[in-house]
């Protein structure tokens, strides 16, 4: 069965410290993986997708097929990074997303 696991419900780090939000997935084929972010009182928005191999707002994520992971990283956290972060996997159907439960990231000043 396809599944996305975000083991941390809450992650709190100091401003300027490195951040790593964990995401593990279970999928038998070639996955397409995403990170979505929801800032306070705002709607869900796409942060990045593994296919484009981009860096958005200083965040990167590398797909590790051996470890079935897609961890989100940023070397120096900023206060405006505080938000809910969701990892999601696209099914073969190419339209349906399977979501993790989310990690709340708090950046302390």
């Amino acid at each position: 069965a396809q599944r996305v696991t975000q083991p941390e419900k809450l992650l709190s780090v100091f401003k300027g410290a490195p951040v790593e939000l964990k995401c593990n997935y279970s999928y038998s084929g070639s996955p397409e993986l995403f990170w979505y972010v929801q800032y306070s009182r705002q709607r869900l928005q796409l942060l990045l997708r593994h296919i484009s191999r981009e860096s958005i707002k200083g965040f990167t994520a590398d797909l590790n097929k051996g470890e079935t992971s897609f961890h989100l990283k940023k070397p120096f956290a900023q206060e405006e990074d505080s938000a809910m972060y969701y990892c999601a996997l696209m099914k073969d159907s190419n339209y349906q997303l399977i979501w993790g439960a989310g990690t709340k990231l708090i950046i302390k000043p």
Partner: protein
Amino acid sequence: GAGVSQSPRYKVAKRGQDVALRCDPISGHVSLFWYQQALGQGPEFLTYFQNEAQLDKSGLPSDRFFAERPEGSVSTLKIQRTQQEDSAVYLCASSLTGRSSGYTFGSGTRLTVV
């Protein structure tokens, strides 16, 4: 409009009451999705439309849930005889194509069944 609009933002329903949630997608977006997000969980897929055709309704939890998009634009999610377990945020998203990488989400409707 400029974004995906959902109404109402909040809905309190008495158990057994019928509710209708509206989604107004971005103009020209072919694909429309409904997701249900329970407290402390990630969204879960409910149903998918391509224009007016409902291509996938496998995520609808029971036959009390019904969705339509009769003219390929506005969509309505209807829940009949609401139960407490229906309490959740209902998210609508639209996409120019069927690729969920191009989703634009609405702000959601928070439904509380009392």
